[in-house]
C-alpha cells in the first residue's frame, strides 16, 4: 500500500514539475529588471492576457506587441502573464500590482470587472483595459475601445461588392461579447448597404458559437461551420472569434473561388493557411492603441474613461489583383465616410 502511494506521489510530482517547468513566461528584458519595478527609475508594464495565449494570432498578441512597442518608446520594462482560467483574473493582475507596476494592460471584455476592482486596490497604477468599455468612475482606468461595427461594416461592404453567388456568411465567437456582436451586426449592415447600392438582394448569414467556454478556441467547430456555409453556396466567409474564426478562414482557403476576411489584426502573416482566400481583415489598430496609451501613461497625459482606437480594413496583400480597382476605390471612399462618422452603421452600441 505504501509503495503504491509512493508511486502515485512520484508520478504526481513529476507531472507537477513538468507543468511548472513548461508553463513558460518570457520577458522582454531591457537594462531594467523586474526588481526595479515600483521604484523611481523604472517604468514597468504588465500585460494580463484573457483566456488564451500571448501568441494567439489575435488580440492577446496585438496587446503584447503594443506593450513591447510602448516599453521601447518609454525605455520601460514589459512582461506578460497568460490567463488559463477566468477565476485567475484578479490573481494575475495582483502579480503585477503587488510589485508596483506603473501600467497594467488587461486584455479582453471579460476582464472588465476584475480590472475596475483591481484599480481600486492599486490606485497608483494606471490600468488599460483593451476591448473594455469603462463605465466606472475610477480615475486610473482607461478603456481602449473600438467601433467594431465600423470595421465590420467595411468588411461587409467589401464582401457585398465581391460576392458572385450573392450569399455571404460569417463565423463568429460568442454573441454576448459586445465587440463580437458589433462586428457581426456591422458586417450585416455593410452587406445590406452594398446590396442597396448595387440594387440586388444579397443573403447574409452570421453564425455565432453558442458554448461559452470554448467559443473562442474551437477551430474544428469553425471549420465545420464554414464548410456548411460553403456547401450551400456562400462564397465569402468572415471569421471573427479567436482560433474559432481562424478555423473558419483556414477551411475557406481550401475551397477555390472563395474569399475570407480576418479580424482584429491583419491576419495575412499570422494565419498563413488562410492566404489563398484572405482578401483583408477587419482591423482594430490595437497595437497602435496600446502603444499610444502606454506613452500617454508615461507622460501623465492619460485620461480616465474611454479611448476610442482606430479601425479599418487591412491590406489586400496578394489578393489585390482579385479586387477590381473600382471596388477598391469605392471601399476607400466608404472608409473615409465611416471613419469620419459621416456614414452611420446603424448598429446599437
Amino acid at each position, binding site marked *: 500500500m505504501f509503495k*503504491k502511494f509512493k*508511486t*502515485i506521489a512520484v*508520478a*504526481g510530482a513529476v*507531472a*507537477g514539475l*513538468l*507543468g511548472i*517547468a*513548461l*508553463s*513558460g513566461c518570457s520577458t522582454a528584458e531591457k537594462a531594467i529588471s523586474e526588481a526595479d519595478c515600483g521604484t523611481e527609475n523604472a517604468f514597468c508594464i504588465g500585460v494580463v492576457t484573457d483566456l488564451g*495565449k500571448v*501568441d*494567439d*494570432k489575435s488580440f492577446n498578441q496585438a496587446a503584447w506587441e503594443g506593450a513591447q512597442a510602448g516599453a521601447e518608446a518609454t525605455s520601460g520594462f514589459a512582461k506578460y502573464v497568460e490567463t488559463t482560467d477566468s477565476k485567475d483574473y484578479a490573481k494575475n493582475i495582483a502579480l503585477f500590482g503587488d510589485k508596483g507596476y506603473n501600467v497594467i494592460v488587461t486584455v479582453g471584455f471579460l476582464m472588465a470587472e476584475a480590472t475596475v476592482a483591481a484599480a481600486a486596490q492599486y490606485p497608483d497604477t494606471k490600468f488599460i483595459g483593451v476591448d473594455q468599455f469603462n463605465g466606472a468612475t475610477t480615475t486610473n482606468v482607461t478603456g481602449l475601445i473600438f467601433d467594431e461595427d465600423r470595421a465590420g461594416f467595411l468588411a461587409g461592404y467589401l464582401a457585398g461588392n465581391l460576392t458572385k453567388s450573392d450569399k455571404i*456568411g460569417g463565423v463568429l465567437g460568442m*454573441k*454576448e461579447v459586445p465587440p463580437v456582436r458589433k462586428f457581426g451586426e456591422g458586417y450585416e449592415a455593410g452587406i445590406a448597404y452594398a446590396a442597396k447600392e448595387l440594387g440586388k438582394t444579397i443573403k447574409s*448569414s*452570421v*453564425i*455565432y*458559437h*453558442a*458554448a461559452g*467556454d*470554448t467559443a473562442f*478556441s*474551437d*477551430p*474544428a*467547430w*469553425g*471549420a*465545420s*461551420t464554414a*464548410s*456548411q*456555409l460553403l*456547401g*450551400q453556396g456562400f462564397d465569402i466567409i468572415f471569421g471573427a472569434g479567436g*482560433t474559432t474564426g*481562424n*478555423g473558419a478562414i*483556414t*477551411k475557406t*482557403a*481550401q475551397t477555390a473561388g472563395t474569399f475570407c476576411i480576418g479580424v482584429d489584426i491583419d491576419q495575412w*502573416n*499570422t*494565419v*498563413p*493557411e488562410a492566404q489563398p482566400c484572405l482578401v483583408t481583415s477587419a482591423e482594430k489598430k490595437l497595437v497602435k492603441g496600446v502603444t499610444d496609451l502606454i506613452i500617454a501613461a508615461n507622460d501623465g497625459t492619460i485620461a480616465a474613461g474611454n479611448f476610442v482606437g482606430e479601425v479599418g480594413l487591412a491590406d489586400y496583400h496578394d489578393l489585390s489583383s482579385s479586387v477590381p480597382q473600382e471596388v477598391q476605390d469605392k471601399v476607400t471612399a466608404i472608409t473615409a465616410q465611416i471613419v469620419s462618422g459621416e456614414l452611420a452603421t446603424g448598429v446599437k452600441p
Partner: protein
Amino acid sequence: MNSLVKRRGFYYALAVAIPTFYLYLQSSNVTTSVFSIAVTFAMPLALAAMVGIMCERTGIVNIGIEGTLLLTSFVAFYAAIATKSILIGFCIAMATGVAMSLLLALMSVTWKMDQIIAGTILNILATGLTSFFYIQGNMLPNMFKQKPIPGLSNIPFFGDVLFKHGVLMYLGFVVILTLYFALFHTSWGLRSRAVGEHPSAADTAGVSVSKLRYINVAVAGAIGGLCGSYLVLELVGSWNRGFTAGKGFTALALMIFGRWNPLGALAAAMFFGLSQAGANQLMIDGTVNIPPQFVGILPYVMVIIVLAISAGKVRPPAAEGQPYEKGQG
C-alpha cells in the same frame, strides 16, 4: 434485453428517418448539407468515444482522452510539416497515441495507480508539452482531401452525406464498425468484456488480464491518434494551443450515452453533430429567430433528458477502475 435494444433502435431510426425524409422533400440541398456537416461534427467525437469504450470495456477508466487527442493532433501537425508528408504525420500520431496509452497502462495496470489520477496525468502532460513546444506560423504541406467514393457517392442523399469525405473519415467508419463487430462477435471481444466485468473469472479461465488490458489500451491509443490526425490533417488544417476544445471530455459523456457500445456511441455522436449542424442551419436561414445560446444548449439539454430517461438502465463495466490483483475477488 437484446431484442428490446434492437426494437428501440428501430424506433429511434424511424424517428430520425421520417422527419429527415420530409425535410429532404422540402429542401434536398439544405437537408443533405446539414447531415453531411453533422457527420464531420460527429466523427471526432465518435472516435474519441471509441477510445473510451476500448479502455473501459477492459476495465480501465481513461479520462485522458482529451490529452491523447491534443498531443496526437499536435504531433500529426508537426511531424507532417517536418517530413513534408501527411501520411508519415498520421503514422507518427498513431504511434504517439499508442505510447501515451502504454503510459496509462503502465500506471494503471502495472503500478495499480488510481486510474483517474493516471488519466489526469496524461491531460496535464499533453497540455504542458504542446503549449511549450508550440511554434506558430507553420503550414501543412497538404491535407487529406475530399475523395468521393466512386459509385457509392452517387446514391441520392446517402452518397453526399457518407461517401464524400476524406480518407481518414472513411477509416473512422471502418474502425467503428470493426470495433463493434470485434467486441460482440469474436472471442477477443468476449475475453475483453470478461476482463472488464469479472477479471478473476477471466483469469481462472486462462485469460491474461494484464496482457489483454495492455493490448486494448494500446489499440485505443492508436484510435486516439486517428482522431487527432483527422482533426488536424483533414478537418481543420492548422493547429493551435487547446486545439481539441474539450472534445475528449464530451466523448466520455457520449460513451455513457451510447451505453459503452460502439454503434450506440456513434449514434450519440451523430445526434450531437446533428444538433450542432441544425443549430447552425437555423442561424443561416434566420427564419426562426432563436437566441444562439438557446440553440447552443440544445444538445446538452437533450443529453440530460436522454440520460435521465435511461437512468438505471445504463451500467458501466463492473470491474471498471479497479486494478486487478491476482488471487483477489
